[in-house]
């Protein structure tokens, strides 16, 4: 009861509400404009919110995250270009509906079911975070190492066309994370005599480079179509009519929550899975799937928004992010000297409640902005890329500089921007690298601690892996690795 009152108290804190609102408006624009992504905006926000209180920074990030994932549907419906990867599936039925002159109706469906998905995810985060944290208190250093390794292998497996490339990306990220002073002995490691590297490669310019500047290069070099805007006719549809799919949307939200909690899978996978199950589950859709079935929008939008809460569960309770945005979010915690993990909710309950409150407030703004503002910003999302991208490049530079007030970081951002661009062109996903950079130091520390604790024991292997949790995690890592071996896959296909 106290927790509920504490969360509700944030609703009356005008400064807090304003922070979430600013984030929500930014999220609406960023998510809707093709070429701008929620990950990019969150990475830029880390540098802007560097000097703010953690509560304010997280309130704004939550606003961007919740509304940004939803607003990808705007350009998906109006332009047939998903504003975010999570909205790819929404284009399948959203754009055909818009071509029939029912764009406003499609947007209403997207808004209401994004709201249901987001609310479901955040409420489940609220309910499940404490028991999961309590369980995670039993974890030993080796368990943390294996859990992070499981996260990296999963991201590698799910985000890349080739598993090897996903793992290469993760290994390169681990190398980057090891640069700087070693936390145990205090000796410089992989700095090669460069003074600026002694403190390590700062995460913010790396993230801005990988997600921001590389995106600028991808968009400008990609010669993509600007897209043709569907007409926005005024079609009347009652809210009661829109909401008649609420029960089935909870099932899609559950898919989103589970997929979101799995490290690496993220909203695009969730929406594809939900869409697939909608095709099997709903025998008589309003129109054939792919030709303007509102049920397609219901499945895609409830699942991709429920991922938000799902991805935050492992991030807050185990410090293992569920997707790229939560990996960047984790860096917000670190920048503010906070340590997510099993003790986070016990040690900082007010911050946990503020995240829940920010998520719920963002849901309110999602509804308001989605119903009243989204149909009116249609013209803005067709802002030409030749104007938009140079502005984003400047934001990347200033964002990279602002964290530490040093030009060296702008250089780091450019290097990682070009690296991210080359990797994406060569089908190496950047998400495993991001996760590895964020988790690398933790993995290194826990691994060395586990090995040095096990060394004096009589049976070294049993001391390392002898506990049931450790064995279960080791089995998970091995399953992911073995399932990618060609002969294992062939056997299972048979």
């Amino acid at each position: 009861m106290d927790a509920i009152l504490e969360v509700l108290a944030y609703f009356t804190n005008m400064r807090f509400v304003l922070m979430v609102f600013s984030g929500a408006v930014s999220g609406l624009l960023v998510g809707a404009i093709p070429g701008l992504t929620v990950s990019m905006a969150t990475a830029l926000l880390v540098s802007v919110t560097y000097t703010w209180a953690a509560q304010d920074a997280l309130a704004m990030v939550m606003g961007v995250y919740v509304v940004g994932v939803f607003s990808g549907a705007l350009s998906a419906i109006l332009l047939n270009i998903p504003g975010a990867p999570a909205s790819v599936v929404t284009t399948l039925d959203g754009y055909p509906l818009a071509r029939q002159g029912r764009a406003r109706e499609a947007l209403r469906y997207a808004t209401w079911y994004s709201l249901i998905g987001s609310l479901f995810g955040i409420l489940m985060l609220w309910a499940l975070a404490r028991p999961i944290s309590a369980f995670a208190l039993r974890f030993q250093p080796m368990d943390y190492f294996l859990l992070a390794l499981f996260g990296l292998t999963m991201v590698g497996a799910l985000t890349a066309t080739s598993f090897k490339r996903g793992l290469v990306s993760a290994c390169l990220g681990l190398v980057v994370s090891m640069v700087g002073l070693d936390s145990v002995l205090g000796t410089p490691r992989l700095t090669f005599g460069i003074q600026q590297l002694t403190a390590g490669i700062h995460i913010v310019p790396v993230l801005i480079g990988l997600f921001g500047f590389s995106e600028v290069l991808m968009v400008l070099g990609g010669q993509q179509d600007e897209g043709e805007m569907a007409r926005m006719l005024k079609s009347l549809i009652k809210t009661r009519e829109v909401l008649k799919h609420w029960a089935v949307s909870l099932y899609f939200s559950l898919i989103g929550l589970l997929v979101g909690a799995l490290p690496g899978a993220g909203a695009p996978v969730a929406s594809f899975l939900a869409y697939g199950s909608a095709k099997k589950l709903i025998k008589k859709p309003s129109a054939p799937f792919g030709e303007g079935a509102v049920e397609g929008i219901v499945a895609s939008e409830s699942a991709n928004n429920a991922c938000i809460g799902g991805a935050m569960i492992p991030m807050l309770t185990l410090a293992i992010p569920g997707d790229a945005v939560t990996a960047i979010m984790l860096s917000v915690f670190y920048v503010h000297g906070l340590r997510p993990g099993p003790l986070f909710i016990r040690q900082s309950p007010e911050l946990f409640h503020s995240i829940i409150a920010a998520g719920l407030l963002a849901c309110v703004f999602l509804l308001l902005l989605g119903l009243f503002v989204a149909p009116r910003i249609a013209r803005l999302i067709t802002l030409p890329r030749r104007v938009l991208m140079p502005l984003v490049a400047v934001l990347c530079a200033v964002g990279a500089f602002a964290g530490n007030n040093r030009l060296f970081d702008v250089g780091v951002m450019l290097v990682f921007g070009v690296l991210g661009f080359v990797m994406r062109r060569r089908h190496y996903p950047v998400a495993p690298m991001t996760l590895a950079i964020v988790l690398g130091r933790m993995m290194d520390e826990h691994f060395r601690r586990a090995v040095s604790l096990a060394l004096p024991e009589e049976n070294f292997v049993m001391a390392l892996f002898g506990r049931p949790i450790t064995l279960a995690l080791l089995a998970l890592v091995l399953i992911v690795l073995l399932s990618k071996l060609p002969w294992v896959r062939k056997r299972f296909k048979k």
Partner: protein
Amino acid sequence: MKLQRSSITNRAAFFEGCLILLAGAALGWHALNRHAQLARVDWALSPYLFPLLVSMGLFILGILLMLEGMKPPNQTTKQPLHWPTVVMTIGCALCYFLLMPFLGFALATALFLLAMLLFLGERRVLMLILLPLVFSAVLYILFGKLLHVMLPGAPVDVLGRAIDLIL
């Protein structure tokens, strides 16, 4: 081992594999070499234990990618790429980064935006003048004045000094 020229069917993957294998080998050598220089430090506590493990991972992945390079490439649709735009954007960004200490943040930003807009085909004079000036000024005020970021300044940064005078 002499590799037959025709056995490499996916050259890009093969050379990427070579590069990753070399990176793994170099990291492993560096880790072993640096650990040897540390006086009486056990491997369990060594800062080079984890780099050594990662180097092994890179080495194995490099070999696997090289093997992949010997198989026919997957039939994936290649996305078109306009290389001159990419090279020019990187070049402009590099100049922006290198010139910022000499021109100051506001002037360097305005010039970078002008160059990029012109290169990307923007020809509306009003847009070419107003957008770089207004956007640079907004960022200068937002970051330099409101968020107290110490943006690079220079005597020739007339734009920054003009904003300072107005404020």
